[in-house]
């Protein structure tokens, strides 16, 4: 049901009322913005000198871009690791062997329940003190924590993706003499992966946001650099807003891409549904009846 069905097409009277309410709503929105801006101005936080730092090339070259590069690096390593982790344990949860299944279930459920921050704090000390690793241990701590949490989420995506496939897919595989494992590897998981793509992009947004937690352990990511830059310049607040804006732009773009990918996938599914059900249909695109997961799972509000 789309939102517009909740009310009738407004008549002249209702339209006038809506217009009035509309103006009130716009005023409320403006009021909130004005309250924030004026409040900041009253506290000397709206001076141009505090903001123009962020349109200078050197600020970007020396602080924000290196920070963004580290954030991206951690996020990309995180998503790659998560997909690998997710494939291993997602398949593990589909295994018929009770032991493998049990171990995979425990691992996935465990890491889905542990806060990412807790893991980041732990891995930071564990890598640098207990294992005495060299290199950027703070970054590896963030990457490890991201992989364990998001990998578990991806494992669930893999599992539900395979479960949502029409039963015929596996049956067909077995009918042509594949074992259960071969059918999983060659038929079911590749299809589940395509269907997962939008959700995976959504997960990348989650990972990007979570990487900002590395700030707490002095991982040199975007938020950390924004803070480092602002500390001698006395504009911590402005730096927070700029860092937030960068995150919002990147994540918003990614979410939009996820929606587009999801739409293209589901339109492909629809086309096949309408097409006469021939054996060719299943080979060309995503199989009919495949549930395309929501682009950005709104139920996963990770930091």
């Amino acid at each position, binding site marked *: 049901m789309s939102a517009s069905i909740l009310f009738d097409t407004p008549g002249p009277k209702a339209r006038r009322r809506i217009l009035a*309410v509309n103006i009130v709503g716009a005023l409320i929105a403006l009021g909130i913005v004005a309250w924030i801006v004026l409040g900041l101005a009253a506290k000397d936080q709206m001076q141009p000198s505090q903001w123009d730092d962020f349109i200078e090339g050197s600020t970007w070259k020396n602080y924000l871009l290196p920070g963004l590069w580290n954030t991206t690096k951690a996020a990309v390593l995180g998503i790659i690791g998560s997909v690998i982790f997710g494939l291993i344990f997602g398949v593990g949860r589909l295994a018929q062997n009770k032991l493998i299944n049990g171990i995979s279930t425990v691992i996935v459920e465990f890491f889905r329940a542990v806060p990412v921050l807790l893991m980041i704090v732990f891995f930071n*000390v564990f890598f640098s003190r207990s294992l005495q690793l060299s290199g950027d241990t703070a970054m590896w701590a963030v990457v490890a924590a991201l992989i364990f949490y998001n990998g578990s989420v991806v494992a669930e995506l893999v599992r539900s993706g395979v479960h949502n496939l029409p039963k015929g897919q596996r049956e067909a595989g077995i009918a042509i003499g594949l074992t259960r494992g071969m059918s999983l590897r060659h038929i079911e998981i590749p299809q589940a992966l395509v269907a997962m793509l939008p959700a995976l992009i959504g997960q990348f947004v989650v990972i990007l946001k979570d990487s900002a937690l590395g700030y707490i352990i002095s991982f040199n990511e975007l938020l950390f650099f924004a803070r480092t830059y602002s500390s001698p310049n006395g504009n911590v607040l402005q730096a927070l807003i700029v860092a937030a804006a960068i995150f919002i732009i990147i*994540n918003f773009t990614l979410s939009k891409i996820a929606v587009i990918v999801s739409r293209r996938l589901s339109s492909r599914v629809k086309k096949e549904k309408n097409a006469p059900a021939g054996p060719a249909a299943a080979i060309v695109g995503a199989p009919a009846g495949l549930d395309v997961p929501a682009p950005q799972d709104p139920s996963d509000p990770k930091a």
Partner: protein
Amino acid sequence: MENYLSIFTEYDIPGAFWVNIQLTFWAAIGALVLGTILALLRISPVGSFQALGTSYVNLIRNTPLTIIILFCVLALYGQLGFVLSSDFQGNFFRLAVLGLAVYHAAFVCEAIRSGVNTVPLGQAEAARAIGLSFLPAARLVILPQAFRGAIVPLGNTLIALIKNSTVAAVGSVATESSSVMKTMIEFRADIVIPIFLTFAVGFVIIVIPVGLLTTWASKKLAVAR
């Protein structure tokens, strides 16, 4: 083993979890109220309200929670002088609750909207047919069913909120579990893994029942159609 057990007498671990539970409790109430209002805005017939709700969700959902909570402490309190409690420590607790509620409200809003999508068209039409206008229709017909259809995403949001309550550490709430664990592993480097597992299992014990309860409730309360 004795070495390990000593951490329980040296540090107040249940107390640390209790802080997280309290943070979660108050933030959950706040997020539910704010999220419902946002959902109403987004499904309302008024353009500016829709835009308000949509921008809120898009802005907040794409911002790291770390920045939101830092912003509450540094900007709202530090620069704008926004005080929520006369008690110094209590103030940071409430600011963290505010940050958590603001962040999770965006997800509650989306959860409720997904719940609204489960309500059949006929329900809204029937509500209008008996003369209910937008707000009464939403309150009496749409939302009660939408909440029941949104239990799973709402439960997932609650689970995320429980875990995200650790991020209050950046908001000067030094008594919650991630801060306590950080202090502990700095001083007891010999038993880093047991300390981490203690806290991790603590969260598993809190989170898993919530997950089971969600599944049970979503089946129990599902609207039969």
